[in-house]
């Protein structure tokens, strides 16, 4: 069945902001879909609120709407664009849910839009747990015994029949949100009632526990002709009980015989057919009892998922791309396999390597959160690695994570652990569980004991036991000879790990030079979907060590063009996510198409280990190395590339802190690092030398000092005055940063900071209270500086820039302020010696512009700025690194001929970036919410953009995109710190005028009443009902306190600023966590409240329209050319 001719215009829905459970894998899949559809000659309209995605670059669709992914906004887009069809299976659960909502509201029918690649009934059959189980049973598959419950009574009934433990799974939530395992009746009560709340249909499934069973997934594809293929099998190392997103997983499955595997395949295919998945990708999860082999089907996702992205990267089979082709009518056998070019996509990939995926957590960002792993996903990112055996892939995956541990043996065991305590630890899933497995084995546990404790399959444990034996050999060997070294490397052990075992080798450098002297180097193999049966056309490589010194490397000689190696950003984490991948992808695109080298551009080589990303799509660069971004691994890639051609340069500035952290060592090792020199990067990061740069340029910075002890810090703080901002040196994403208001909190901070030593000093900065924070992204080429954009933060300085909403162009800064920003940025670019991108953060207070920090690298805001100000900063930066001048780029048309992002035309649209926070994902071990207060430590996982003609509309859109719409009526609760009471009067009054009911805590209410704002008084959570200081004659809310009201859904918006001096802040905490759990907008800053009021006004006016980015950018660029004319 060839391409359908009745579809000419397809609407694609993205997945919105990066959140836990839904990350950049959907940028990867959506980008592939857009590319496919356009190459098939179709018009593509795209809706996605996430500006950091590649898919929302204007060149990937005909009309790109950076608008909230809600049925309301989608209808506006459909009305404006009138597409023939809607493709919603590549944008995660968000897109699928929105498509279902559009169907249910009759929008699709009204506008004659056909849903392709999915079938509404099939979606419901797949997601309605009871119907799904019936289907599985009808095809002869097994399912865990279970019951769908809509009330706590039903839950209790099932448990009284079946006993504990049971699994609780709310219906229609994403990433397993709200699900978990209850071992006790207390846990059951708490978790099931929470699950009922989290479910949009107030429904949970209570299920027989399959805890500890072997866990598998199949990725399948189906076409219109009912051909079905299995793309990949995935085995979870962590058995059932840990969400697959939080498990270490392996592809292909390692511990099934053909008989069991084929049974799983048969059931999977039968279920897929019976559910009636239309076309495209689908993921099915299975559990197998480890000693009886009983197999049950757990669930299915009738769409491209996180596992699909993993499977695509693991096998080289591009699931999303094929899914898009299937949706427009092709059958699998009509689509060529990109990699072999000679064979069709109607086959099942076979691997001659092992793939391991490991999750990256960020618990350190959420103090108090329960770090135990359950069926609710908690990881924020992942790394994948390929090796020629399991331990090689595992070792590479572990060091790819860039966590505090870099593989086994690199950090000492925790103090006081015993074999018993270690085995005990193994009973529950936790971050780094395989480290615990290794420790247990090293302390003498048997494979059987570890299996008993952890439920991990003995095969995996034995693999780690082999490493423990190898460790003994390495320790005992008189010298490390080539044979032992080769065997060690083949087992996935890094130079750094070897160095930890053999101190006499003088560290990683010593191990490497020994290894090179003995000729022990990796070879590079190719991912080709077919285990070498056919020749591969795509150079998608991974490293492996073979025992045979004459083993074969498959890196082809380069063509004529010089090569550029781009280092990616590794696993997503808070503070380093998709934004950096965006910049790396842009560098690849920009350099490939550069007019350099006689117009043929560069051959681009990408190195990265994050399977979710666009950068690790084999189509993005000319060559892809799926490798850890450690010094050792990168150096070997550079060696391999240098051995096969000329490397013009290595780009380290675009992938965030990961590659930047390697810059100096790479340069010292003779690697041609391009762009801002590593010394200059260091200059900007070192407070002392940076201070000199500022002094030379005559730029003020907040006064600060560096301390290595509490006494030192106290002296500095006394000197510059409280409040002060304290933080460890060298951090990204504000790790460990806090604002302290007095000596006691300072002492407390120093005590808590894990390491304060002369090597790891603590920085103490004057904290500029109530300043306006400004963020700038700029390009510098040594001659000119191009300001990409000036962003004004909505929240005041002190909230991490990554968590703060911001507006571009700045909404309250005057021309003079912006000119001041330009001059300062130019001076910094020159002082540091920037060649490429520069990000500067300023604080404006009392008309003084303070420099907070300057980073000569791509920042998180590069994609946002590039879109909001219509200039591709990362592409331009990459070109500048290879010698292009800003003037050249203007002449080429990559940058506007005149002007820049600091002098946008007066009628330029306003773009607002809002951060998306993951608080609802985390609970304390007791099951309470964790505090959602913003501070200097970054906590957001993603961002959305709202863009419109004026700030109010843009802000309203950003809120809709991030959290659901702002209310247009109802009740606002106000409780603010004393210092904020004055500033809060005006916005609250405006809300009252707009018809909102106002309620407030006693103190706040008093101020509001004096300002003629009618309000009721609500008791704080910890106030005595009899005496909570309600002013006489004021109406109160009776017995109920504010938490009761929030939980009862009677509050529609909350203004709650922290009470200045940190301390227990119990009430604020309770309010904020209640707000998070009920999804009530909770604004914690005065500026945020003012912005929210503007947003509410815009929403009430109801004139919020939608405009494609292409048109908005044309306005921006058009206005400029107007100036020239």
């Amino acid at each position, binding site marked *: 069945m060839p391409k359908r001719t009745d579809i000419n215009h397809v609407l694609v829905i993205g997945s919105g902001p990066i959140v836990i459970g839904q990350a950049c894998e959907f940028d990867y899949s959506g980008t592939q879909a857009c590319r496919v559809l356009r190459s098939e000659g179709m018009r593509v309209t795209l809706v996605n609120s996430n500006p950091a995605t590649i898919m929302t670059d204007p060149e990937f669709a005909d009309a790109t709407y950076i608008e909230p992914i809600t049925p309301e906004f989608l209808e506006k887009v459909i009305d404006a664009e009138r597409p023939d069809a809607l493709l919603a299976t590549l944008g995660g659960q968000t897109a699928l849910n929105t498509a279902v909502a559009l169907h249910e509201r009759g929008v699709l029918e009204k506008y004659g839009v056909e849903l392709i690649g999915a079938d509404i009934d099939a979606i419901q059959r797949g997601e309605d747990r009871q119907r799904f189980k019936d289907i599985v049973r009808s095809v002869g598959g097994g399912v865990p015994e279970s019951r769908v419950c809509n009330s706590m009574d039903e839950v209790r009934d099932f448990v009284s029949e079946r006993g504990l433990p049971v699994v609780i799974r709310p219906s229609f939530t994403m990433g397993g949100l709200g699900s978990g395992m209850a071992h006790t009746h207390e846990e059951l009560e708490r978790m099931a009632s929470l699950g009922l709340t989290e479910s949009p249909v107030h429904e949970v499934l209570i299920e027989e526990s399959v805890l500890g069973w072997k866990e598998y997934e199949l990725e399948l594809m189906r076409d219109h002709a009912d051909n079905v293929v299995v793309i990949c099998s995935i085995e979870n190392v962590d058995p059932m009980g840990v969400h697959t997103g939080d498990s270490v997983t392996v592809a292909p499955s390692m511990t099934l015989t053909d008989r069991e595997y084929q049974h799983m395949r048969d059931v999977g295919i039968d279920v897929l057919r019976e559910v009636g998945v239309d076309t495209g990708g689908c993921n099915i999860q299975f559990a197998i009892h480890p000693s009886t082999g009983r197999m049950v089907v757990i669930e299915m996702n009738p769409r491209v998922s996180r596992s699909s992205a993993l499977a695509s990267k693991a096998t080289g089979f591009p699931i999303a791309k094929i899914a898009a082709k299937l949706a427009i009518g092709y059958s699998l056998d009509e689509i060529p396999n990109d990699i072999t070019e000679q064979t069709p996509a*109607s086959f099942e990939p076979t691997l001659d390597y092992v793939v391991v995926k490991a999750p990256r957590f960020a618990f350190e960002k959420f103090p108090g959160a329960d770090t135990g792993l359950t069926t609710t996903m908690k990881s924020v990112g992942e790394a994948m690695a390929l090796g020629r055996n399991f331990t090689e892939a595992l070792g590479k995956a572990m060091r790819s994570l860039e966590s505090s541990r870099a593989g086994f043996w690199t950090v000492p065991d925790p103090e006081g652990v015993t074999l018993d305590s270690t085995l005990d630890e193994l009973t529950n899933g936790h971050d780094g569980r395989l480290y615990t497995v290794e420790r247990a084995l090293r302390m003498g546990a048997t494979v059987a004991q570890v299996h008993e404790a952890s439920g991990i399959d003995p095969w995996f444990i034995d693999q780690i036991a082999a490493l423990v034996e190898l460790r003994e050999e390495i320790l005992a060997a008189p010298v490390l000879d080539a044979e032992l070294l080769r065997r060690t490397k083949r087992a996935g052990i890094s130079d750094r790990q070897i160095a930890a075992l053999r101190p006499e080798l003088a560290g990683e450098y010593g191990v490497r030079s020994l290894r090179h002297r003995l000729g022990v180097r990796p070879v590079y193999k190719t991912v080709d979907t077919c285990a070498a049966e056919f020749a591969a056309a795509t150079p998608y490589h991974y490293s492996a060590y073979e025992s045979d010194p004459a083993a074969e490397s498959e890196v082809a000689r380069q063509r004529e063009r010089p090569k550029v190696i781009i280092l990616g950003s590794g696993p997503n984490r808070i503070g380093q996510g998709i934004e950096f991948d965006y910049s790396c992808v842009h560098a690849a695109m920009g350099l490939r198409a550069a007019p350099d080298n006689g117009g043929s551009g560069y051959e681009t080589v990408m190195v990265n280990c994050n399977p979710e990303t666009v950068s690790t799509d084999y189509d993005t660069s000319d060559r892809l190395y799926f490798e850890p971004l450690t010094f050792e691994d990168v150096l070997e890639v550079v060696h391999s590339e240098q051995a096969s051609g000329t490397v013009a340069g290595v780009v380290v500035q675009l992938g965030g802190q990961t590659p930047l952290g390697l810059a100096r060592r790479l340069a010292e090792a003779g690697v041609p690092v391009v762009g801002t020199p590593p010394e200059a990067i260091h200059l900007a990061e070192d407070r002392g030398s940076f201070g000199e740069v500022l002094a030379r340029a005559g730029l003020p910075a907040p006064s600060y000092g560096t301390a290595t002890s509490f006494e030192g810090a106290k002296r500095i703080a006394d000197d510059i005055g409280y409040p002060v901002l304290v933080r460890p040196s060298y951090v990204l994403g504000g790790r460990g940063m806090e604002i302290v208001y007095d000596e006691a909190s300072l002492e407390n901070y120093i005590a808590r900071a894990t390491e304060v030593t002369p090597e790891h000093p603590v920085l103490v900065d004057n904290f500029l209270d109530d300043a306006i924070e400004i963020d700038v992204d700029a390009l510098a080429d040594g001659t000119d500086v191009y300001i990409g954009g000036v962003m004004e933060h909505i929240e005041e300085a002190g909230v991490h820039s990554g968590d703060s909403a911001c507006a571009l162009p700045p909404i309250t800064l005057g021309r003079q302020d912006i000119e001041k920003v330009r001059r300062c940025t130019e001076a910094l670019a020159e002082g540091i010696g920037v060649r490429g991108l520069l990000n500067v953060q300023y604080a404006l207070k009392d008309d003084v512009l303070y420099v907070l920090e300057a980073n000569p690298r791509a920042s998180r805001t590069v994609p946002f700025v590039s879109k909001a100000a219509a200039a591709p900063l990362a592409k331009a930066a990459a070109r500048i690194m290879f010698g292009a001048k800003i003037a050249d780029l203007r002449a080429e048309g990559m940058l506007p001929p005149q002007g820049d992002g600091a002098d946008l035309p007066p009628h330029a649209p306003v773009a607002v970036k809002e951060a998306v926070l993951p608080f609802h994902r985390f609970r304390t071990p007791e099951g309470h919410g964790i505090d959602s207060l913003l501070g200097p430590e970054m906590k957001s996982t993603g961002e959305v953009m709202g863009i419109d003609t004026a700030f109010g509309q843009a802000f309203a859109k950003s809120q809709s995109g991030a959290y659901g719409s702002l209310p247009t009526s109802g009740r606002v609760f106000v409780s603010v710190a004393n210092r904020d009471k004055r500033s809060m009067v005006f916005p609250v009054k405006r809300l009252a005028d707009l018809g909102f009911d106002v309620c407030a805590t006693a103190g706040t209410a008093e101020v509001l009443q004096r300002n003629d704002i009618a309000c009721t008084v609500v008791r704080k959570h910890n106030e005595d009902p009899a005496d909570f200081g309600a002013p006489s004659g004021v109406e109160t809310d009776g017995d109920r306190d504010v938490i009761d009201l929030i939980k009862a859904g009677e509050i529609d918006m909350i203004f709650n600023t922290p009470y200045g001096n940190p301390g227990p802040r119990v009430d604020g905490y309770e309010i904020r966590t209640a707000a998070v759990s009920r999804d009530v907008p909770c604004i914690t800053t005065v500026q945020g409240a003012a912005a929210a009021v503007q947003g509410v006004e815009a929403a009430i006016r109801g004139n919020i329209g939608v405009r494609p980015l292409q048109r908005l950018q044309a306005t921006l660029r058009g206005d400029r050319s107007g100036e020239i004319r």
Partner: protein
Amino acid sequence: MTAQAPAALVLEDGRIFRGEAFGSEGSCFGEVVFSTGMTGYQETLTDPSYHRQIVVATAPQIGNTGWNDEDDESQRIWVAGYAVRDPARRPSSWRATRTLQEELRRQGVVGIANLDTRALTRHIRELGAMRAGVFSGEDVTDDQRMIERVVSGDRMLGADLAGDVTTAESYVVPARGQRRFTVAALDLGIKSNTPRMLAERGVEVHVLPLSSSLSEITAVEPDGVFLSNGPGDPATADHAVELTRQVLSRRLPLFGICFGNQILGRALGRGTYKLPYGHRGINIPVIDSDTGRVAITAQNHGFAVRGEPGEHFDTEFGRAVVSHHCANDGAVEGLRLLDAPAFSVQYHPEAAAGPHDAANLFDSFVRLMSEAR
């Protein structure tokens, strides 16, 4: 992970791949071929079609599920030698009773581990399947001597091997449940799962030695005749071809798989040829020319019948069609007579190892027999 005795896999073109001893120590000779299946090594090793072949597993981790008493496809391991990258130290499966290594040793099968199997596979892909030897322990001698021993071995082209693997005595696999049909299965290297799948469909299977005559076949009063898979060059299988022609003349329903497809092809006047490196795996797409549908199939063949996808041709038994072809390279994967009740496929509907997409072909055979009544 302690060091094993050295081993070498030596090719007739002089290329040598070094590794470690695996299974029995010693030496073995045969045609080196690679198999891309990621599961099912026990079924593969016991498949008689691999007789006189040294099999390279492209999947790197082998032996993870050990060896059990249920998954053998015949009475013994047939491969001449086995080359793997990373054998499991310890198996894990609730059905395993011993390790793969133990079983290889018990049956005296010489293997090699820890070699660059991917480089070897690429070599075979580029230069074709060829003669090879595996040497381990004390049998590892100087290179030239090992190469000489390899080139003195027999080639697969022209090898008549079905006689080596066929059953000495006929035997019966009873139908499961009520017997509906009787089938005479000519054993050219039959796998246990084939009679099992027929039996599940109410078929009593009489497995007969290759040397059987037509009268020995008709003596069991069959409703249909089955031609099994098997090793060697089909060009040598003159007896089986002649027998097939006699069966076709009598219009007895006939179904052949793999080697059996090649026998039917020859009986219909078609030639066979050796593929450069064959089809060996469990992921191979086959297109049914009638429906356009794709089946993912298990395959293990080094030879193929000459023909074009969808080609119609005349035979002395009436019109025939190339009913199936491989989506990867267009090779003939199935034949069907339009005027007589006979069909065959080049792949393995009985799977084991492999997907069950083509299992319905046994139903087709049953239908053919019931129509012929």
